[in-house]
């Protein structure tokens, strides 16, 4: 199979590499096979079997699979720690064992294989020297990276004393010390708390924005889903499915409409109204705040109150040397970054939040308070069949937000930490999502009678999403 195939819906089953521009491919695996042998050279385990895969420049590529599916072996083959039994793997067009390639690669292993006797800054200095960085560059990058991962206060403590999460942060920092073009992250959020996890995802997005190529291997599917452009799912050493995340996850048979609360209207009326216009198989739910959101909020408040901790702290701005293309972003404070994390997590719930899919929002940017969107929210979700309801959904959007022609801004198309601040206005706004991609822009043109729209408007009591009513958002999903 080819994981380079970006055709919608992904594909299953093996096939040869798709003929994309070879110059664009950072990693190419062709019929890659790795068989481990025993002492007598008898085949013992076939860890990777005829894997065809291609990772393109500038994308975040997810390598997924259950334990023992061959992900780590694939990564070790890519890094030259193992040699293929057959097939070929090239990185930047050269064999993976080519030492000169490695100047362009950063690697975070699945466990923190760090020297316990070195302090955090000595660790980074060591890896910096391995890349041939001079003392000044090492000092500058060490400062920036430790600040970025929130370990500035622990820079002179031996790594052996660190918690697992702190070690992972040092590991992440070392993988970035050379400002790599290709970053390979094996379980980057393993052992990390939600704050650190959010930080890591923010870093990944920012690096992707800077044109870095990232290979992400993780069990935490939610994390992968948040940040990857394309994924390959492995099982038994073979690639089982691949393609853009959005395409793989999109459910074309469901539509979610998200809107402010239904107080004064009642769910029954809402459902009746929707059934009246021919929608069936409806469900209404009240989205709950995620535990992660709650956790982040508590920690954020503790930080604002100045509660001391010797453990890991929330990360700061992306290290400047990684961000040379837009120096202004460097000045983003740690607090702002945390706020962005919160904002992104409080964004409207989307069944399939693909990175490429624009998050529908109206009244965008109405709130810069990361906590505001979660206060007093009562969301309701009505799910129903989407088929044949595109025009209705458009009208719904128009009725609810008054911005039926609203198109998502390019910034808003990237959810998460990096783009979260820009799209944070989604929180607390009346929002309508339709289709599997939860986007107003994906629902197609309007062809339904105006009467239906007016019924809905009546039912909703003239709720004006434009007014920035953050109290009662809700979502409606349906098919019909």
């Amino acid at each position, binding site marked *: 199979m080819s994981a380079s195939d970006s055709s919608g819906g992904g594909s299953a089953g093996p096939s040869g590499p798709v003929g994309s521009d070879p110059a664009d491919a950072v990693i190419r695996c062709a019929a890659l096979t790795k068989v481990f042998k025993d002492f007598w050279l008898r085949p013992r385990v076939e860890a990777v079997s005829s894997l065809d895969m291609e990772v393109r420049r500038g994308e975040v590529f997810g390598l997924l699979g259950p334990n023992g599916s061959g992900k780590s072996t694939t990564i070790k083959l890519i890094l030259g720690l193992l040699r293929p039994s057959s097939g070929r793997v090239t990185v930047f067009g050269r064999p993976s064992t080519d030492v000169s390639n490695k100047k362009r690669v950063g690697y975070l292993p699945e466990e923190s294989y760090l020297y316990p006797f*070195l302090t955090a800054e000595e660790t980074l200095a060591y890896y910096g020297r391995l890349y041939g960085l001079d003392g000044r560059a090492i000092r500058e990058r060490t400062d920036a990276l430790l600040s970025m991962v929130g370990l500035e206060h622990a820079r002179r403590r031996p790594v052996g004393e660190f918690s697992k999460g702190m070690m992972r942060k040092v590991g992440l920092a070392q993988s970035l010390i050379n400002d790599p073009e290709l970053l390979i992250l094996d379980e980057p959020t393993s052992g990390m708390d939600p704050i650190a996890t959010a930080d890591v995802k923010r870093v990944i997005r920012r690096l992707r924005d800077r044109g870095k190529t990232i290979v992400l291997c993780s069990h935490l599917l939610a994390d992968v889903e948040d940040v990857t452009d394309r994924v390959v799912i492995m099982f038994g050493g073979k690639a089982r499915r691949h393609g853009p995340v959005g395409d793989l996850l999109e459910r074309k048979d469901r539509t979610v409409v998200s809107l402010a609360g239904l107080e004064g209207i009642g769910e029954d009326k809402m459902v009746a109204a929707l059934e009246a216009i021919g929608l069936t198989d409806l469900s209404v739910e009240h989205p709950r705040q995620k535990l992660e959101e709650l956790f982040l909020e508590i920690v954020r408040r503790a930080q604002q109150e100045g509660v001391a901790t010797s453990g890991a702290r929330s990360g700061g701005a992306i290290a400047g040397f990684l961000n040379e293309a837009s120096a202004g972003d460097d000045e983003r404070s740690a607090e702002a970054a945390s706020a962005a994390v919160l904002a992104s997590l409080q964004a409207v719930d989307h069944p399939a939040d693909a990175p490429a899919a624009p998050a529908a929002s109206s009244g965008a940017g109405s709130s810069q308070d990361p906590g505001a969107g979660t206060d007093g929210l009562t969301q309701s979700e009505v799910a129903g069949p989407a088929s044949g309801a595109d025009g209705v959904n458009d009208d719904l959007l128009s009725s609810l937000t008054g911005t039926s022609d609203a198109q998502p801004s390019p910034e808003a198309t990237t959810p998460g930490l990096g783009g979260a601040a820009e799209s944070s206005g989604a929180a607390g706004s009346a929002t309508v999502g339709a289709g599997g991609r939860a986007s107003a822009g994906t629902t197609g043109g309007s062809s339904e009678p105006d009467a239906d729209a007016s019924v809905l408007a009546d039912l909703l009591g003239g709720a004006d999403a434009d007014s920035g009513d953050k109290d009662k958002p809700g979502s409606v999903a349906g098919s019909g």
Partner: protein
Amino acid sequence: MRITGLLWWIGLVAATLIGAGAAYALWRGGSPGAALCAGWGGAAAVLAWVGLGLYRWREVGWVRGVRASVVLVLVGAVAGGLLERVGWRDAALVVAASAGMLLTAEVCLSLVRLALGWPVPMLAVARTLIDEARRMRIVGVLVGVMALGVPLLTFLMSPEERLEYRMGVFLLWSLTLVGLVLSIATVLLTARSVSDELAKKRAFLTLTKPIGRASYLGGKLIGAAGLNLALLAAAGAGVYGFALGLRAQPAWDVEDEIAVNNRVLTARQVLPPRPAEGTDLIGLATERLKALRERAAGDEAVEAEYGRIGDPPSAARPDLWQGILEQVRSSWLSVGPNETKEFRFTGLEKVYERASTSRERIQALLAEAGMTSDREVGPYLGQLNFVIRQQQAGLFPGRTIERLVRDFELIGERDPRFIEVLTADGRLSLETAAQVYRAAYTAPVQLRFQPEASSTPDEQVLLRMVVRGVDLSPRPVSEGDPHVVNVPAYFVEADGTLTLVVHNPPRVMGQGVGQAAAADAEAVPQPTISFNKADGLVVLHEVGGFELNLVRALLILWVKLFFLACLGAVLGSLLSFPVAVLAAAVAYAASAGSASILEDAAQYSRVAIDEGSLRVALAEAWQRAGQGFAQGEYGDVVKVAIALVAGAALQVVPSLDRFNPAEQVSEGIRVPWGDVAESVWRLGLLWTLALGAGGWWLFRKKEIAGASV
């Protein structure tokens, strides 16, 4: 107030300037007491400020190093001072010296780390190995053993022993201890560092960086070399310091005092004798070959090996010709009954130059004492020293030197002139006599001989060893033991030659020196006395100082440790830690004892696998094995097989015992630069490169990561 680095430096400079300025101003103003107070106050303020800085920035790497150094200085000074105050001088010295050695090691390690700070991947690995070593408990314990052991060695020997002996033993033991400890530490460190990094997967991360596997192993090697350099510097400083301290202790006598400087804390060259002019060893060997050919004329087998009559010597098989030459040399170094042989030691021009000065000094001293100065006192100086020692010890109060000489039969009837010198009692004071002795032996030549006799009833031999008409060895000496005779430097001829005449006279049982033989005394059968060709008869003379000799010895040790580091790293890259260490220990033991193992194997199997030619050894083994089979003595065949396996195994390990300079240093024998160069070439380059290349090839093939599915 928050103290920043800049503020701290300003404070330090200010406190120093204010304290020093105030003290200077007060001193200039005529108030020395106040100046002293100001000086002490300023010093205290500076110290307090420094202490504050060390505490404030205690987690900064280089501050930690400075703090460790300060702590070591304080421990050495305070603990040493306290122990000294309570009367435990030896303990004080040990504590202070240990702290000093550790301080030296710390400073040297910091310098090495600084030197390894270049942004080169290989040096980064090297630097991290040093950091690892500093935190490894086992290395810490071994360094502690070394830092404590070297000072303690000086106190393990009884002060009743001669100082020369104590000095020699101290140097031998301390250098052996340093070599042993650092060898173990090096192998443990490198084997563990590499094998642990592979087992704990730290190497995964390192080897995904732009560093090749050869550079990775090379980095480990350089790190170990840097570490050993620092530790050897500390150990060398400790050994040197204690040698100086030991030298300052009271010697037995003047001879002992001089022997320490002339025989131990020096660097002497060993000169073998040359045949007297007209002696043609090649000619003798040719004659012997000719006689052999004549005896075996017609025997084709012998002629095939030794050539025919009339053939040149080169027609003989080379190893057989060399064997004949060796026999001739050995017989030349033998003195038959009533035989007299002359041996010449050349190349002593420098000794002659120094001797002229000492001769003038002796003559001046004797002239000052109002004595005629044409007497040759050199041969009697040993006796003179004995007398001086008795007098100094006050063992025989009231006795004159003359009386002592006669009482102890030191001179005998043969030396009336010396009696004259000594009977000038009152003119030749003890002090002057000691000065004469020192002057005579400032730069002496030592004659060292080890006589082997064919048969003696009492294991004693009598040798007349005469230089310029003076018998240097007037009485029987034990056979098989080494003996040393000091030869005054001015016995050397102007052309730098020392001519020794050796006579093997008849001897009578129980006859003392200078005594007439008893009428019924039994004559001792006269044996043939021979000297081992390697070092049975040699002359030693000073050619350099102890300091440089010690440095050369430490350099050889360093090269040896370099090889061991390579051994540890290579084995660590292929095997797990315990197996790697075990394998390294076996290889080390085989290397260190290869000569004696070969010798034992040769004795066991009666096949000369310990002597040069492999072809000859194999032929001999084949022959012996054939005989064993033919006679049904299969045990012999097994023995031969074992010997051959041992011989073959030892062919592939370098002979480390060749590179052990501790004995040379302890005997004051020069470690030549040639030995250093040879150790660098053979051990540091050839063997290390061969081992490293082989290890790298295997490591390169090795898949670092294993199955993880």
